[in-house]
């Protein structure tokens, strides 16, 4: 397997958010700032890599009928690890991401990759796949977070660029939908130009 292609597909060709439309709940829910988007993306990437690794390791030991529940337990374990570690070492980020941290367990990207890839491929390939998809997801969330933070708070990664308020709508729920919608239009335009 061409590992470079395996890794890079998660960024553009099979980007979880812009192409596969997976993992949309956290994409909309935590991207009120670039930092939050980045934090969420990295936490998800950790879970993706670890669960892909373990699933690929034990894929031959688990009977087919219980594979989905087994994958879910494996994923949930790493999600809980992330929860506990973040709570202890980056409590501010933990508070900011809130409910969406335990919700990583139902992020369709994670279960999707475990089922579609890790259960059928080598350990190394699964690891690379997890890393690529995870980092691609992180990129999408950071970009959306940066856009919303710039337009909605006039800040970039926490540094205020203008004094006073910006277009508050963008850090509120409607703004999330609108920003993502227009970013998808942009993604479509880019897709056209490059094909």
């Amino acid at each position, binding site marked *: 397997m061409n590992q470079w292609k395996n890794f890079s597909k998660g960024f553009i060709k099979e980007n979880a958010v812009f192409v596969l439309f997976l993992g949309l709940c956290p994409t909309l829910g935590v991207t009120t700032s670039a930092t939050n988007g980045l934090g969420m993306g990295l936490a998800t990437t950790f879970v993706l890599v670890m669960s892909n690794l373990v699933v690929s390791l034990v894929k031959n030991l688990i009977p087919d009928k219980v594979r989905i529940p087994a994958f879910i337990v494996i994923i949930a374990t790493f999600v*809980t690890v992330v*929860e506990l570690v973040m709570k202890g070492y980056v409590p501010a980020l933990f508070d900011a991401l809130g*409910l969406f941290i335990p919700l990583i367990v139902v992020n369709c990207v994670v279960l999707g990759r475990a089922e579609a890839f890790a259960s059928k491929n080598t350990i190394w390939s699964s690891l690379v796949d997890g890393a690529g998809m995870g980092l691609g997801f992180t990129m999408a969330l950071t970009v959306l977070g940066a856009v919303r933070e710039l337009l909605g708070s006039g800040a970039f990664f926490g540094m205020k660029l203008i004094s006073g308020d910006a277009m508050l709508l963008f850090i509120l729920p409607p703004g999330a939908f609108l920003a993502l919608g227009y970013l998808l239009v942009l993604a479509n335009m880019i897709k056209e130009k490059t094909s």
Partner: protein
Amino acid sequence: MEYILIIISAVFVSNIVLNQFLGICPFIGVSSKVETAIGMTGAVTFVMVIATLVTYLIYHSVLVPLDIVYMRTITFILVIASLVQLVEIILKKISPPLYQALGIFLPLITTNCAVLGVAVLAVQKDFGLLESTVYAIGNAIGFGLALITFSGIREQLDLLNVPKRMKGVPIAFIVAGLMALAFMGFTGIV
């Protein structure tokens, strides 16, 4: 009276989809036809309410007393996964046509963040048993309201001349944004 407030808040003010961003995947994936939206809402309501009840009981009678609250995520998601399996089996026996119509969407309820989300929120907000159940029912109604309204709009959108690059998911999100904006008008009611 308080129960009415919980329901109004869950359906309109803090709508699970348009305000809390839970349940977006089915919101985008199952909303192209009103019929499937209605079927999905029914299935989700059933799973959501029972899951919230069962997870509440497990949390308060097992996890907390044994001080293993960190097992919350695992136990909750296993409960939900099992319930979905149960729904599939029951539906297959009771109403095969409905089972066929829902198809792939049934197992997808397991990954519906709204179901796990509501179960976790009910426990976080420290609701009692009855309050949690009412909260779950309210959120299921809110989910249905958003989903069914949205699918109605999308059915109409399909008949219109949408610019090529906006067709499908992008325009869906923009419409959802406008819906979310409309729902913001409900804030301050409770």
